[in-house]
């Protein structure tokens, strides 16, 4: 029987949660016996090769590309897991939510103290994904099945969740593994 597939991605996040996935140390050898990695920055596969059992999502939705990737994940994965506080509440990227988008762009490209921009242009190439009006937690965009809180969640939390799901059990986190920091 083919091994179940796991896909991962980072939206508006810092890749810290992916570092935490790697931080499961030698257990990763056991994980490779249990699953195949599909679309993921870990193996650099860019497109889904088939249906996945689990999708791990790091980061919130800050631009239209994030939304597109997230919807692709929902379409291809049986279970979607929000990994880390950016995916759950937007976190550091969401700190721009209190400032209007135009002010953010003006500060970054026109008015910032270290900005040198004689043309006075804000980048607007069609290749660049458009920023959303604010950063959205991913469960405000698609349905999410499980949440692993933490910034980042500990390797133990990720391991616990993955092994429970692969064993056909629901994800239940003990007190020590629920952390928001």
């Amino acid at each position: 029987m083919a091994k179940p597939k796991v896909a991962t991605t980072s939206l508006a996040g810092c890749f810290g949660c992916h570092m935490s996935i790697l931080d499961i140390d030698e257990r990763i050898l056991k994980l490779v016996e249990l699953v195949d990695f599909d679309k993921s920055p870990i193996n650099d596969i860019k497109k889904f090769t088939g249906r996945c059992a689990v999708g791990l999502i790091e980061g919130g939705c800050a631009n239209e590309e994030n939304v597109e990737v997230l919807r692709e994940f929902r379409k291809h994965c049986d279970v979607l897991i929000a990994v880390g506080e950016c995916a759950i509440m937007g976190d550091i990227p969401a700190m721009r939510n209190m400032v209007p988008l135009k002010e953010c762009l003006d500060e970054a490209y026109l008015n910032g103290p270290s900005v040198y921009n004689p043309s006075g242009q804000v980048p607007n190439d069609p290749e660049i994904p458009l920023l959303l009006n604010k950063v959205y937690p991913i469960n405000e965009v698609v349905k999410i099945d499980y949440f692993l809180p933490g910034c980042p969640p500990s390797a133990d939390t990720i391991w616990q969740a993955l092994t429970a799901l692969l064993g056909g059990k629901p994800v239940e986190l003990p007190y020590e593994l629920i952390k928001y920091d």
Partner: protein
Amino acid sequence: MSETIPITIDGVEVQAKPGQTILEAADAAGIYIPRLCYQKDLVPFGACRVCTVLVNGRPQPACTQPVAPEMVIDNSSEKVQTYRRNIIEMLFVEGNHFCMFCEKSGNCELQALAYRFGITAPKYPFLFPKREVDASHPDIFVDHNRCILCARCVRASRDVDGKNVFGFVGRGPHKKVAVNADANLGGTDAAATDKALDICPVGALMRKRVGYAVPVGQRDYDTKPIGSDIETSKAK
């Protein structure tokens, strides 16, 4: 008149003293009722409603409701726990609680309650309100992003410090803690030694230059849930 009042909490008979609130009687009996705005040394305020219990089937705040004979109190049914979980989740989404860079993380009572209730994510949409930080005082600061309007600082400043530094202004979503100076916190006689500073359950009212004195992972609620001190007092 009898000296104790018999009440029942979760099927356990408790002998309460006249004049006690439900919460005080439960504490004395080693039964933990979750709470946020209640503080032992302050006048009960009934602001947060996290301590809601069902008294003979009706929801009541345990911190302000005095005991009466034959009360049957439900402190643990799914219904009561759902009320509390919803209140905690609402407190998270209506402020800006960025736990990962908050100095109070691990010592924060709001966070600790969420941990105790096993909340991994709030089910409501985040509001991301625009709020200010007042760092005008040389030794302390107020971060309104984290304030949950529990009025602990208001009561402590008024009743313990005798300074009346803090008070509420505004209504509904505009309600916030204000200070008794025209300008801001720097213009008040608040001091770093005030009780009001020790008593903030979240990271809204903080001392400057003492952050991270205890490392994350070794803080109050990192290993044991909030309320376990009350529950273990029962076991002894």
